[in-house]
């Protein structure tokens, strides 16, 4: 039951490395806020500042209406799940979960009740007497979760908690974390570099790049209206096709010749045209939009869908086709995308409406 408020937060390491360059985020009570961005963009640093493990160079962090800049990690009433789980290797699962409660001087019966309840929720009851090294990766992950939930904290912090698991388990745990967070109604901050995890878990998605926030919003809003070319290429897989001049090679702006190649008109100031692979259709189109010919170079069938890689004039494009594709490399297909599905960006990479 808490809100988290970041105002002008900056972090400078050792006087020179600026890892976080001024971040404002406001997280609502009970919400799951996901910080997503490429490796090294400052996500972990930001999370560790919320946890109190890293000092705050500038700005304020506020948890549940209280500025916590000078408050130690133990007194912030938060729980954190680390990427490597950080389980105490010399303690049994039970003691791993009980440790934080004992340190807070809780009564034995109460500790026992809480640990047993958490173990039941996470299906760990049979494993309470084991040590971490006797557990599988997925089980360790659950213990780390258990250690967080027994404390019943105001805020959960997750730092890439699933990145050490295999793909199948990751998908499964993702759903469990979401359900757990929903049912416990604890405000959470979740850090990941995986856009799929980010999209599926977030109530509020924060896309970060180079120590700055690029965009904040609901996952689908961000997907539908990326604020910049960075967000456009980071959210969605395969990424949005970004078409610039000179075939996009030098980042030059689109020219009149490019636009006539693509059969499209753009709002003034546009230098880059964005189009998602799934928004491109095959065939002839009478309405306004992008209309061109795709020369197929490679076909990637992945079962439920196929991806055609090819060229339209000098521009590289990826097109998603549902099911199996009948196109072969070398084929030339008419393709189009309605104008409403197009995204326009200016010379600074910012979105242009039009």
């Amino acid at each position: 039951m808490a809100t988290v408020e970041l105002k002008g937060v900056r972090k400078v390491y050792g006087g020179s490395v600026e890892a976080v360059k001024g971040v404002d985020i406001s997280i609502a009570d009970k919400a799951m806020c996901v910080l997503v961005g490429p490796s090294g963009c400052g996500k972990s640093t930001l999370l560790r500042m919320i946890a109190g493990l890293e000092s705050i160079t500038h700005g304020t962090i506020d948890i549940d209406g209280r500025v916590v800049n000078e408050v130690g990690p133990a007194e912030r009433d938060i729980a954190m799940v680390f990427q490597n789980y950080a389980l105490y290797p010399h303690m049994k699962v039970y003691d791993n979960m009980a440790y934080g409660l004992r340190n807070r001087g809780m009564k034995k019966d109460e500790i026992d009740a809480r640990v047993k309840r958490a173990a039941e929720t996470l299906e760990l009851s049979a494993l309470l007497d084991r040590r971490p090294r006797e557990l599988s990766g997925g089980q360790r992950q659950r213990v780390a979760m258990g250690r967080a939930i027994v404390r019943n904290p105001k805020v959960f912090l997750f730092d890439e908690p699933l990145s050490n698991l295999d793909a199948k388990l990751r998908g499964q745990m993702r759903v469990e974390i979401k359900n757990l967070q929903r049912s416990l109604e604890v405000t959470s901050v979740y850090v990941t570099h995986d856009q799929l995890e980010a999209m599926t878990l977030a109530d509020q998605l924060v896309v970060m790049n180079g120590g700055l926030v690029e965009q904040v919003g609901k996952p689908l809003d961000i997907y539908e209206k990326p604020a910049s070319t960075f967000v456009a290429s980071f959210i969605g897989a395969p990424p949005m096709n970004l078409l610039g001049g000179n075939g996009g090679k030098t980042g030059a702006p689109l020219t009149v010749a490019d636009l006539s190649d693509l059969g499209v008109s753009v709002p003034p100031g546009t230098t880059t045209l964005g189009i998602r692979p799934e928004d491109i259709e095959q065939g002839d189109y009478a309405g306004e939009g992008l209309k061109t010919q795709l020369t197929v170079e490679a076909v990637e069938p992945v079962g439920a869908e196929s991806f055609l890689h090819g060229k339209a004039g000098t521009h590289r494009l990826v097109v998603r086709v549902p099911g199996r594709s009948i196109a072969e490399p070398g084929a030339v297909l008419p393709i189009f995308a309605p104008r409403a599905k197009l995204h326009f960006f200016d010379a600074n990479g910012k979105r242009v409406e039009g």
Partner: protein
Amino acid sequence: MSPRVTFPNKFLPYLLVAPQLAITLVFFYWPASQAIYQSTLREDPFGLDSAFVGLDNFRRVLSDPNYLNSIQVTVIFSVATAVLAMAVAMFLAVMADKVIRGKGFYRTLMIWPYAVAPAIAGMLWLFMFNPSMGTFAYMLRSAGIYWDPLLNGPQAMLLVIVAAAWKQISYNFLFFVAGLQAIPKTLVEAAAIDGAGETKRFWTIIFPLLAPTTFFLLVINTTYAFFDTFGIIHAVTGGGPGKATETLVYKVYNDGFVNLILGESAAQSVILMVIVIALTAVQFRYVEKKVHYG
């Protein structure tokens, strides 16, 4: 699996291990067997003749009150030296782990004392605490402490313990620093979030996780205190005053080379040898069981 290298020549493998075997034979098995042989003999007072006496030397040694005193001295000295050297080294290593700037420089300085030879280290401490001219002895005396390790047994013991421990601190420090670095930082952070203060974190997380290192060092340090401190004791107290610092190793030397009671001295070396073997066996047994967590 790579294929096994085989030598067509039957003789070559033996030739290759011969130097190692020769060294072991000459420097260990031969003296060891000589010691065992010697321990069953007794020389006449003039050293002209010797006679086989069986286990009589052992019987005499083990019933000699001086020998029992020496065992007690050794146990006190070894345990105190090991505990002091390890406690101080662990404290310094934990502190060094917190240093961020100049970490390498600080560690290098900490390691230097290890390069000092035991006898030199002993002399150093002897000078500093010499009752008539030592700087520290002077300071102790002006602080109202009657300091005279040349006459006072416990003070002499204290001095050799401190000198012996001082030399071993560097070595222990190195291992503790490595051991601390092997503990993931996130564990300490998780404990901090779990509400454990600094002292509590040390005793509940860091100390237990250092246990394999600590145990290894305990064995090494005890062995060191048992056997490698001869030089220090020889330089500082010469086993005195009145046998107050005469450890088992020092007694072997004293009885054998100074008093020339060769048979009994040899019997003492054999007993010492058994103690080393026992210590080593304990080490292997215990370390193998203990080190595997993490």
